[in-house]
């Protein structure tokens, strides 16, 4: 099949892309999204939230050292990781939903790679000028003072953005104001420095130099997303039937010999992925919709209707070509597939909210000690030992009393406590050794296994929680 004449080249250099400035509704939407997402990213670690004297007052904090995740009024312990798991599943389903409805909308608008590249291109344009000026600068072989000054200014500005990006990242993992002081006085932990270094380097290189290479060669998402699109998915497309044959109308030509596309290359010049949307669906397209803005501007100028390039379902491209009326976009968006995704997404969301509201701020788990399985005491009574974990998810120290609940009399003792009560410090987990003992003639002593329930009661406010376990007897 391969019949190309020249020997195939093994490696190819990246072809630099110089996206031209564009105005329009999608560009404005992208500016807005950039401001909101970057704002969230940079500001969040500095928000405060009062949790009492014992706990950190950072609104969003991933406290790896104490194994806690704080999100405003929510505090997640490691054993509650299913909340994070649920959120990740929701994020996944959310992406499925948006991809099946709107194609690679995540890539085009909200992906950090896209947002930061957009920001880097903005800086590039401010310093070096728009597309043509940048092209000239690139083609100029001689590194004169002007080129040097422009390049160094650009790189330094990028570096500044990269450092503040890497810097903001570490603030999520420890008290931000304290870390800021530590960083400024060069007292911060080496892990903070190395994290900032790595994040700075990746932001600088990915945003400044790799750009679309990250999407094309490194990121798995575009490939996965492509598998989730179908002919109902709205995506950026060129109306072939309307535009072709493309070209400028000459004086002596009849108006209907050419399509609406005047081959002005505006859509190609603004594309951050460096492709021509008129070639149809391609893997490089991140559906940023900037070509729509660019083309609409031209259509306005030449007095043709907008929408030569527009969000369109592949199905409609076919029906429009055949001269039929396209289906309304809403019908594409609200179809069985997206409704199933929405349903699943909401189901998990509601489930998580439910779990969040019913979870108690005391918690008990009981693990029977298996070595030995049971202990014969001097008077013949049978004793079992248990490791009981008590979690006090409260900002104050609390005192608990314990009680065993079974069909017959069971003696409950707590190692190191004479009265069977246990104190657990604020926001702490405490493991205690508990003994349950039944008499020599009790049913539980002769049976192999008997069900037991251990109750804890908060001595202050009477809150109760329980855990079920078993009692091993001689049988």
């Amino acid at each position, binding site marked *: 099949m391969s019949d190309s004449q020249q020997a195939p080249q093994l490696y190819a250099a990246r072809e630099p892309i110089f996206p031209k400035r564009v105005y329009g509704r999608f560009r404005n939407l992208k500016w807005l999204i950039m401001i909101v997402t970057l704002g969230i990213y940079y500001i969040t670690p500095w928000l405060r939230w009062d949790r009492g004297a014992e706990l950190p007052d950072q609104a969003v904090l991933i406290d790896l050292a104490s194994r806690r995740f704080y999100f405003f009024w929510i505090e997640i312990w490691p054993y509650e990781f299913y909340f994070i798991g649920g959120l990740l599943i929701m994020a996944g389903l959310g992406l499925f939903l948006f991809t099946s409805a709107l194609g690679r909308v995540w890539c085009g608008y909200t992906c950090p790679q896209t947002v930061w590249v957009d920001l880097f291109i903005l800086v590039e344009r401010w310093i070096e000028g728009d597309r043509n000026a940048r092209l000239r600068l690139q083609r100029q072989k001689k590194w004169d003072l002007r080129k040097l000054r422009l390049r160094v200014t650009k790189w330094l500005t990028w570096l500044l953005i990269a450092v503040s990006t890497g810097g903001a990242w570490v603030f999520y993992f420890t008290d931000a104001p304290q870390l800021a002081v530590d960083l400024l006085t060069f007292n911060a932990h080496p892990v903070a420095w190395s994290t900032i270094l790595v994040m700075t380097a990746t932001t600088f290189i990915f945003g400044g130099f790799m750009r679309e290479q990250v999407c094309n060669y490194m990121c798995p998402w575009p490939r996965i997303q492509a598998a989730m699109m179908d002919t109902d998915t709205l995506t950026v497309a060129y109306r072939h039937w309307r535009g072709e044959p493309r070209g400028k109308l000459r004086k002596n030509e009849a108006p209907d010999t050419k399509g609406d596309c005047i081959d002005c290359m505006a859509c190609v010049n603004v594309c951050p992925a460096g492709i021509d949307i008129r070639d149809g669906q391609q893997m490089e397209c991140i559906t940023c919709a900037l070509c729509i803005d660019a083309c609409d501007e031209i259509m306005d100028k030449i007095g043709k209707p907008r929408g030569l390039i527009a969000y369109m379902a592949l199905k409609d491209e076919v029906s429009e070509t055949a001269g039929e009326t396209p289906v309304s976009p809403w019908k594409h968006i609200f179809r069985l597939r997206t409704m199933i995704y929405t349903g699943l997404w909401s189901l998990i969301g509601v489930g998580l909210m439910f779990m969040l509201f019913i979870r108690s701020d005391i918690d008990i788990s009981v693990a029977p000690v298996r*070595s030995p399985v049971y*202990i014969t*005491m001097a008077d013949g009574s049978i004793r079992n030992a248990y490791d009981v974990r008590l979690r006090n998810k409260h900002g104050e120290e609390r005192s608990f009393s314990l009680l065993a609940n079974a069909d017959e009399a069971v003696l409950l003792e707590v190692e190191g406590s004479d009265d069977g009560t246990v104190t657990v410090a604020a926001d702490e987990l405490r493991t205690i050794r508990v003994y349950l003992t039944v008499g020599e003639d009790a049913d539980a002593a002769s049976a192999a296994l008997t069900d037991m329930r251990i109750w804890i009661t908060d001595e202050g406010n009477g809150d109760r929680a329980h855990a079920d376990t078993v009692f091993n007897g001689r049988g």
Partner: protein
Amino acid sequence: MAANKHDKEDHEYGTTGHEWDGIQEWNNPLPRWWLWSFYLCIIWGIGYVIAYPAWPLINGATPGLLGYSTRAEVAEEIERFDVANAPMEALLNETPLADVEQNPELNDFAKNAGQAVYNTWCVQCHQAGGAGAKGYPVLVDNDWLWGGTIDDIYLTVNHGIRTEDDMDTRYSQMPAYGDFMSDEEISSLVAYVQTISGQDADTTLAETGSQLFYDNCAACHGDAGTGDIFQGAPDLTDRIWLFGGDEAALTETITNARFGVMPSWSARGMSEADIRAVSLYVHQLGGGE
């Protein structure tokens, strides 16, 4: 019309010739930066081989310029923990054992250290968690041969039981009654011991046995057979038997006697802090008095 790079005829590189269900693969070149990253990895690899231990030799490996070794790192880590533990160990050594529980931090330290010592040196005989085995006492019940207070346990761990290499060890020996008692006398003794420990036995035999017990056994095991921790004489009236409490096991014990030995851990070179820690650990396993 501009060349469409997705038309096969116009494509610069053609396809690889591979086809799966009509899907063909472009013979596109790799990105050049990818090649650079490959070379970078090679350079990194060479640097790594020079800096770190890498090439295997007959005895060991090339040391590497940085002189790094995982063993040295472990030794360093142990050293660091030893230094960090030193103040707690000193505090443990000067705190009376009975008072340790009042200092939760010290108690936690001692229990954790004691568990490590126990799982290294004691677990072979006394089993995981102090479950015990035939001839090796259970450490989690409330029956102690030589006493179950923290000081008793410390004494036992420190000097051992019936061990030869420690002058301060606690020592006792039960005579082998098989040497000077008839089989009938022994079986009557067995019947009596079974009776006082709540088992069914021949009452007439037990009657004879009670006099024999009073004459021969009560000096150590007590008139009532409740034992004596100062001589390590077991309580014969409870439900706990070190070597078994049925007729066969009791006959064997009375005929040939038993002689359980525990090593002296001070004589074996265990540090004072470790002995104290493991004593506290055992005391808090559930049976301590």
